[in-house]
Each structure stands twice: as structure tokens, then as C-alpha cells.
């Protein structure tokens, strides 16, 4: 083999590897660019009014999104109340009790549900919850988001329960504990951190969802009382304000974007730090 050929091959090798580095660098750079731009634009437009005041009518400057912040909180709470129990207990069934047939059906259904575009979930929630009651409501929005939380919670509960060492299980059984007692007092506590992480990640994911809320929770320029009224949420507000022609609304959209992204990223980082500390195995 001639030296020139070898040099060429080495050059190609170094060049291409450098290019892959550039690809990775560019991809990560996007994140910092997004963060920076949002912090800059949102930071200059955010103020105390944003958190405490209601939206002002078109043309009047000022006002805030207090109703949307409360609305998002309400819907996320209700969504968790629906999604977490179904996902968690269903996950226990998959990991601990299931026979072969039923388990694969449940797994398949969950994976299918996980891949459904969020707008389609919105259609489903609309025809199931909005149409029969004849009005947009917080619980219709929560139903849509809760549905999206189920598959994530379910599959990760199963994964983490299955990763609990056999020894713990056998130890509890050997002490005469029944199966459900073993699960409730030994296995679930051992997998607790992992499951918490999964629930938080599911929450972070649905917190930013807009499409399924457009025709379930809809939106509202005022506070919504109770659960059965159209409810404003942060993501939907960002959308409506961003595509509007008013400069003051654009400013508020940036502020809302900063708050939403901050919330989602904080939950994400929190969840990942919980997990990275490892799955705690309680000592007896």
C-alpha cells in the first residue's frame, strides 16, 4: 500500500470523524440557542403582572396570564389523578401478576397509545367528553392529557419493578409474606425512585401539550370556576398569542414561553437527578 493512499485514508477518517463532532455540536447548540433566545425575549417581557393579572382586552396594553397558569395547574392535577393510578397499577399487573396472553395485549395497547399523535387524542376526548356534555371543560382537557400519561407511566413502572433484584422478592416470600404484601412493602418501595422519575417525565411531557387542548379545554379570557367550564392553559395561550397580529400579545407569548419551558425543563432535570442517584434498595 502506498503512503499517499494511507495518508488519504487517514485524512478521510479524521475529516469524517470531525464532521460527526460538528453534527453533535450543532445539535446541542440548538438547545442553548433556544434557551438563550427565550430567556432574552421572555425575560424582557415578563413582570409580576404576568402572574397575577387576567388578560386585558385587545388594544389595551398590560395584563397577564394568571388564569392560564391556574388553568394549566388544574388540568395537570386532574390528568395526573387519571393517568398515574391507571399507569401505576396497570404496570404492577404487567410486572407481577400477568399471564402471557393478557400482558402482551396490554403492552401492545399501551405502545399503540403512546404513538398516537396528540391531535388525534384531542379528537377522541372531544367526541367522548365534550360532545355528550355539550361544552368545553377542564375535565375534557384533563382526560386527553391523562390518556397521554398512561402509557409512559405504565411501561416504566413495569420496567422498574422488573429490575428489582430477585433476592428481595424471595427474601420477603421466605419470611411468609403474601405476594401483594411483598409487592406493597418490598418491591414497590425498592423501585420507588424509578417510578417517580417516570411519572415526573410523563407530567413534563403533557405539560407542554397544546394540540389535544385546542378543542377540549379550549380557552378562556377569564378565570374559570369549577371544572366544567372552558379553561385557559399556558400552551394554548402561547399559540393564540403568537399567531395574533398584536405586538403586546407577542411579548406576552414570549413571557409565557419562558415560564412553560422553565417549568418543563426543571421537572425534567429534577426527574433525571432523582434517577441518577440510583434505585434505592432499602436496608432491612
Amino acid at each position: 500500500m502506498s503512503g499517499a493512499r494511507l495518508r488519504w485514508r487517514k485524512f478521510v477518517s479524521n475529516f469524517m470523524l470531525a464532521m460527526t463532532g460538528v453534527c453533535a455540536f450543532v445539535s446541542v447548540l440548538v438547545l442553548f440557542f433556544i434557551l438563550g433566545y427565550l430567556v432574552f425575549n421572555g425575560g424582557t417581557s415578563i413582570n409580576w403582572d404576568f402572574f397575577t393579572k387576567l388578560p386585558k382586552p385587545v388594544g389595551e396594553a398590560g395584563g397577564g396570564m394568571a388564569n392560564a397558569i391556574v388553568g394549566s395547574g388544574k388540568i395537570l392535577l386532574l390528568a395526573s389523578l387519571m393517568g398515574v393510578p391507571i399507569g401505576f397499577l396497570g404496570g404492577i399487573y404487567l410486572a407481577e401478576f400477568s399471564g402471557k396472553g393478557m400482558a402482551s395485549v396490554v403492552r401492545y395497547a399501551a405502545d399503540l397509545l403512546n404513538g398516537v399523535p396528540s391531535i388525534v387524542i384531542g379528537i377522541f376526548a372531544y367526541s367522548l367528553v365534550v360532545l355528550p356534555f355539550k361544552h368545553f371543560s377542564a375535565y375534557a382537557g384533563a382526560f386527553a392529557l391523562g390518556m397521554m400519561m398512561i402509557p409512559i407511566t405504565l411501561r416504566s413502572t413495569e420496567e422498574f419493578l422488573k429490575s428489582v433484584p430477585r433476592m428481595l422478592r424471595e427474601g420477603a416470600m421466605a419470611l411468609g409474606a403474601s405476594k401483594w404484601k411483598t409487592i406493597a412493602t418490598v418491591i414497590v418501595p425498592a423501585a420507588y425512585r424509578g417510578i417517580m422519575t417516570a411519572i415526573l417525565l410523563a407530567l413534563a411531557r403533557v405539560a407542554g401539550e397544546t394540540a389535544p387542548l385546542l378543542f377540549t379545554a379550549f380557552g378562556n379570557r377569564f378565570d374559570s370556576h369549577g371544572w366544567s367550564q372552558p379553561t385557559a392553559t399556558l400552551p394554548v395561550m402561547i399559540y393564540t398569542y403568537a399567531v395574533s397580529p398584536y405586538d403586546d400579545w407577542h411579548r406576552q407569548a414570549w413571557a409565557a414561553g419562558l415560564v412553560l419551558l422553565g417549568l418543563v425543563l426543571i421537572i425534567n432535570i429534577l426527574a433525571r437527578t432523582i434517577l441518577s442517584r440510583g434505585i434505592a434498595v432499602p436496608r432491612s
Partner: protein
Amino acid sequence: VATTATTLKNAGPVTGSRSFFSKLRDGDEIARLITLLFAATVVLITAALVWELWVNSVLPRQKFGLHFFVTSVWDPIMDQYGALPFIYGTIVTSAVALLIAVPLGIGAAIFLAELAPPRVSDTLQFFIDLLAAVPSVIYGLLGVFIIVPLMRTVIYPTLNKPFGYLPIFKGPSYGVGFLTAGIVLAIMVIPYIISVSREVLLSVPRDQREAALALGSTRWESTWQVVVPFAKTGIMGSIFLALARALGETMAVTMVIGNTPKIAASLFAPGYSIAAVIANEFTEATGDLYLQSLIALGLVLFLLTFILNGLARLLIVVTTQKGSEVGG
């Protein structure tokens, strides 16, 4: 060893043959039934989803049949609905997104899996996971205020001047359009391609790399001619996953595609996508046929992503299993 095996084998049936009632007394059977109930709910909800979509799209199926997919008139006043412009827009934006995201994503994945020290790789992966968690409406917001103006001032002139004779770069630009939506989608799906491809590349056994290096190949040759082909199906899986996500993406596309139900060859022209038309017109749809046509579009979207996700999962599983078989 043999004795232990027999004892363990015999231990199984003893617990299994406990009567239903003794299990009920322990609470085991109750716990099983309760968790089964919740697990069954998941199946029920999924089945109900498919059922509702199917039942609520019966009118356009009866009236238009398969013509629904090939006619391009979308006219609520005349009650005529054809899905072609939306299907076209969805396919074009997703194709543009993949053209940008696949090389960039796979390149980054190769760097993370093959080149970067584990510490650096994990840190970068952490940031990429965060990128995947950014809500789509935020990408839409940035699209509207950054990429749309950039399109008008930078991207359009650079592409239109030298390549304007090509049909895809012809015509005026309004900032919004297929290309803008494609770029925003590309930024959104890159993290998915990186995460899954990196995972798949890391599952390629070490001896494959070492064998290639021992035969005198350079680092790049071992990566490109041995490791990547080994992980090929899994990487395909990651691309399908990204495609499914791009097809179903609503908010970011709605905000930058221009929302015009027209089929245009130019990438600068405004268009429409399936998800965008549902988002925009669903609450305003008057008349059953109008609403059901939108739901029929939802059904199309559902079926597309269903098939792609299924294929993706299959490909990823096949590759990671191949890795553990050869490696193990």
C-alpha cells in the same frame, strides 16, 4: 447442581396449586383482580379510541369513498372535501425534515457512540434529552419569530437566486411554507434520531470494531463499513420513529406552514398539513360531513403513525437482539 434444579422445579407447582380461596384470603387474588382492572382499562381506552375514530368518520367514507384521498377540493361551503392537499403537505414537510435531520442526527449519534469519551457522551446526551422535552408550541413560537423572518431575508434569496429555475425553488416567498415547516420539524426530530441511533450503535459488540481495526482499517472505515451496517436496521427504526413524530406534529407546523389548502411544487409556497387542518378547523366545523371529514383525516394520521411506529419498534428490537446474540 442437578439436585438443586429438581428441588426448584418441584417448588413451582406447590405454590401454583394453592386453591383460589386461600389466595383470596391472602389478598393476592384481590390485588391481582384490582391491578388487572386497571390494566384492562388501558386496552379499553385504546380500543375505544380506534372505535370512535372509525364510527365518527362514516359519512365521508360513504359519500366520497377512496376519492377522499385523491381529490384536492376542500370547500366547506359547497360541502366538498378532498384530503389530497393535506396529505401532500404532510408528506412534503416530513420529507424535508428527514432530509435535514437524518444526516445531522446520525452524524451526531456516531460521534456520541464511537468517538466521545463516555463522560462527554453522557453529558451531551443529557442536553439532547432536554431538547426532546421542549414542548412543540415553543418550537412553533421560535419558528414564527426566528425562522419565518430568516426565511424571507436569508434562506429564500440564497436558494432562489441561483436555483430559481428549479420548480421546487420557484416563485415568491411569504416566509411561511413547506420549507419553513420542514426546517422546524427537522429541529424537533433530531433529538429522537440521535437518542435511538446512539443506543443502537452502543449495542454493537466491541469485537466487531476491534476486528475491523485489527485488519488495518482506519477508525472511520471501521465505523462506517462495519459498525454502521451492523446497526443499520436499528438506525432505520430511529428514522421511522422520527417520521411518525413529524407526520403527527401539529402545533409547530400549524404556526409556520401558511395554512393554505393548495398543492404547489415550490417549497416556498404556503401549504397545509393533516394535523394543521384539524387543529384550525375542528372547532369551527359546522355540519356533520365537515366535522366527520376532519375526523377521517385524524383516522388517516392515526393509521400512518400506527404502521410507522410498529415498523420502527420491530427494526430496533431486531438490531439490539442481534447485538446481544453476536456479542454474548
